[in-house]
């Protein structure tokens, strides 16, 4: 456990200094821990793995967009745990049975569709992208989904490199807020 904390802390502090490889590795290390945590917690209340995966992603986004709230003098595990727990409580409160009542007449809908993507989250990146302004959508699709460099994306969009980076940054922030608020 202590070993883990040291590793995560090194990755995050290096990441915050601008080493994106370390930062990415930090998020990758968190993923499995969060997944185990949410599956364990949600299975107790009879909820499925898709919901757990939603929460894993929501938490990763929260960690990313609120990474400046990490105090570098403090251990990183309690910080992540507090975010994970907050997101769990928030999720359970939003989706408690009383607020999710569905009319009985709609029972037929259950058999009308099936879903083979249970291990993925319900987030559809294209659907989310569609809600962004065109500039941000193009920039994110070029750089993050197709993997072009900032210079290539800038050339395609006819914008400056800085403008592309700004669009991507703002767009990702907006995406995170859509995800956080989508069931509110």
């Amino acid at each position, binding site marked *: 456990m202590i070993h883990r904390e040291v590793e995560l802390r090194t990755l995050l502090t290096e990441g915050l200094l*601008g080493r994106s490889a370390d930062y990415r590795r930090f998020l990758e290390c968190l993923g499995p821990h969060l997944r185990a945590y949410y599956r364990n917690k949600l299975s107790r209340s009879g909820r499925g793995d898709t919901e757990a995966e939603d929460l894993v992603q929501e938490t990763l986004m929260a960690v990313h967009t609120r990474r400046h*709230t990490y105090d570098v003098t403090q251990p990183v595990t309690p910080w992540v745990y507090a975010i994970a727990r907050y997101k769990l409580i928030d999720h359970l409160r939003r989706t408690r049975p009383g607020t999710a009542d569905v009319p009985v007449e709609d029972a037929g809908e259950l058999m009308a569709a099936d879903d083979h993507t249970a291990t993925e989250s319900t987030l559809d990146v294209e659907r989310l992208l569609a809600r962004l302004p065109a500039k941000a959508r193009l920039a994110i699709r070029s750089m993050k989904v197709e993997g072009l460099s900032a210079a290539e994306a800038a050339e395609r969009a006819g914008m400056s490199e800085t403008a592309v980076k700004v669009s991507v940054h703002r767009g990702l922030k907006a995406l995170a807020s859509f995800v956080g608020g989508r069931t509110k």
Partner: protein
Amino acid sequence: MKTDELIGLLGTSFEREPVGTPWMTRRLALAVAVGATAALFLALAFLGLRPGLTQARPLLFLALKVAFAAAVGGLALRYLVRAARPGGESRVHLGVVASPFLAVAALAGVSLSMTPPAHWHGQISGHTWLECLVSIPVIAIVPFAVITWAVRRFGAPTDLLRAGALVGLSAGAVSALGYSLHCMDDTVPFVAVWYGGTIAICTLAGALLGPRLLRW
């Protein structure tokens, strides 16, 4: 979307931007400062500066009120910065937050013990207790809104009740700071009861509103 894809998305969206400890602290301190300026402006514009500030006794009591409000506000900000971080609520010490209140209550006790009981009523309620009771919470609305906005925008509190209480406490403190420029009741028991009490009301209101307003 698969989680690996999301991590790829987040991991590469990395710009050198202002991150790190002092950044959020500075933002929240700035919000409290803006709130204090607004409270000063409101108190001076709608209530006016008190007369007699060239004499020793009014100046002494103004200094006492300012010192009390500044001590409460400083501690509130110190712990608000902690409570605005995920998991930081465990580093909020309520006893320390309460210390300026206890100090002014002790001073008030000393002051009352040196006064005949027949004058206690006048010492405690002064002339303008009602104005004080109404003004401090009303003026506090503006700093409360500013600080709430800043905590939502820059922080990520995970104990919304406690974070809300600290927002209310800091808003009440800067509001009392502004009101002290107008307040003409110069006794320690008055400050203890009406300044302490109204700031406590603001704290309570913040604790009640926090879970609704501070969600992120």
